[in-house]
């Protein structure tokens, strides 16, 4: 090895070190962790958050405003038009949101990543075909189709999960493919092939670990879209069927009473926004830490 290349490698190593230190200097998104943690805790311990039933209300306690706006400490966030405690419904609604986000990201993310890995590794016409499918997926008016399906088949939780998983697999496929194509050309992968490793082994043992970071970042960034899509569908009446509390349908229920009881819509919407903002910030931070290359790519695939 000549001296010049060694110097170049050293220089690069120093530069990388500085970059890494700069990135780690970005503060930890503590507020994101707090919000997300609080919501997950509320979901898990929903029955202990308040003693009120989230579904059966007391009609005598209709439309009580939140504590700071003339309400009582019995209902800190007020009650809705059926006298149901909003705090309690928010906590139980968190269960739906957390459940929906976990399952859709698990299923959609795993399938999408697998497709991306295959596409990137196989190349050729397989790649061409798969990427064309992804393009088509991105140009379908999915919310409309989802709405139609939900109304035709009747809204249900499994249908909602399937639709949302379908909504997000494309982003995973695109990013996993791009990363796979980069790694495929690496020497260690080529060596593994020469050593006689089967394609499954090469992808599973040598490429997948390198793609995991990308998948994790995409997953974090997609939480927001999943939550928002679930809320939109629930708002339009195509999400989780009532009376199960879901944040989106809570906003929808408050719509009719916006003149007299604004808090019924305000509170669940704020919670949705807080959760989405927190996961987005967390995603930005993770991306800068794990995979800065995604900066442009994710912006492209979002709409």
């Amino acid at each position, binding site marked *: 090895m000549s001296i010049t290349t060694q110097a170049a490698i050293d220089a690069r190593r120093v530069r990388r070190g500085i970059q890494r230190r700069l990135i780690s200097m970005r503060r930890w998104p503590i507020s994101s962790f707090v919000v997300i943690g609080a919501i997950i805790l509320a979901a898990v311990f929903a029955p202990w958050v308040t003693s009120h039933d989230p579904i059966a209300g007391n009609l005598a306690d209709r439309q009580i405003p939140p504590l700071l706006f003339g309400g009582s400490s019995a209902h800190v966030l007020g009650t809705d038009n059926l006298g149901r405690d909003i705090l309690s419904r928010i906590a139980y609604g968190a269960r739906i949101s957390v459940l929906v986000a976990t399952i859709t990201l698990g299923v959609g993310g795993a399938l999408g990543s697998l497709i991306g890995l295959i596409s990137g590794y196989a190349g050729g016409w397989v790649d061409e075909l798969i990427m064309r499918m992804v393009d088509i997926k991105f*140009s379908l008016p999915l*919310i409309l*189709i989802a709405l139609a399906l939900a109304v035709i088949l009747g809204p249900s939780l499994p249908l909602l999960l399937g639709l949302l998983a379908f909504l997000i697999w494309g982003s995973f496929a695109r990013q996993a493919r791009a990363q796979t194509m980069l790694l495929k050309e690496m020497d260690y992968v080529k060596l593994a092939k020469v050593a006689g490793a089967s394609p499954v082994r090469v992808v599973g043992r040598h490429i997948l670990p390198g793609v995991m970071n990308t998948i994790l970042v995409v997953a974090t960034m997609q939480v927001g879209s999943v939550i928002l899509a679930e809320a939109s569908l629930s708002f339009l009446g195509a999400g989780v069927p009532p009376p199960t509390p879901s944040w989106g349908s809570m906003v929808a229920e408050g719509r009719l009473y916006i003149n007299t009881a604004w808090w019924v819509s305000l509170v669940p919407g704020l919670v949705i926004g807080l959760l989405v903002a927190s996961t987005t910030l967390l995603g930005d931070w993770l991306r800068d830490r794990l995979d800065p290359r995604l900066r442009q790519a994710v912006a492209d695939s979002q709409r």
Partner: protein
Amino acid sequence: MVTMLVVTMVVFALSRIQGDPRGVLLPEDATLKQYEDFGKELGLDRPVFVQYVIYISRLAKGDLGKSILQRKSVAEILRLRIPNSAQLAASAFIFSLLVGIPLGVMAALKHGTGWDYGARLFAMVGQAMPVFWIALMLIFVFGVALGWVPTSRKVDWTSYILPTVTLGWFAAAGQLRLIRSSLLEVLQAEYVRLARAKGVSGVLVVWKHALRNALIAPLTFAGLTLAGLISGSIVVETVFAWPGLGSLAFQAVSNSDYPILQGVILLITFFYVLANLLVDILYLFLDPRIKV
């Protein structure tokens, strides 16, 4: 082209899993004869594949079928709704550019200051808050509490304000973030630093050297938002009772009027494909390095 074909299949399949529309439309005491005649009128007596081929060949001639409920041609119903949706989408699009670009440029130039944080907060709210929630809160504050603007239906020009802001905010937020980050990047580039070193004035550097190159990424985004605005309008139009395609689709879904729903989905996808094509063409003008 392929996209449109796939969409026709999806749309067609959707209409078929819905089941027999005759059950909904005919009175309960309809005779078997009426039942069959009506089926023939709708083309339900032939195999599914044949129905699809007929559907496609009609589509090629611009025939979208007839609305089941209104007994009018879908094309005609759509034609009445398109201007309303287009106006709303256009005004929201203009709003997103007028708000997103200046704020994004300002945030980049005043990087790290209060202005920057303010702009980013605006963007964060636009992207994290559900559209329908923003709509309701705007209705409550400006329509109900302050009583400044009408809150539903299309009456005069003031009816445009709330739906436009609601629909445009999300797009403006994305635009702002993209402009900000790409301008920050471009401002670090050597040719911009050179221009500054040569003594070109600050405003000129930004407008002539930096912004032009920083606009490429947001341009793609603009194309996507334009299409996204059309489909995003479903919620907004429903909340504001706006007589456009989105609320039409919502009504069609609740009335199981599938020819109309088919028409709307096809039309929206068509706009989407068209918008992407336009962006690709615009790209060529802005960045001569890209070759077809």
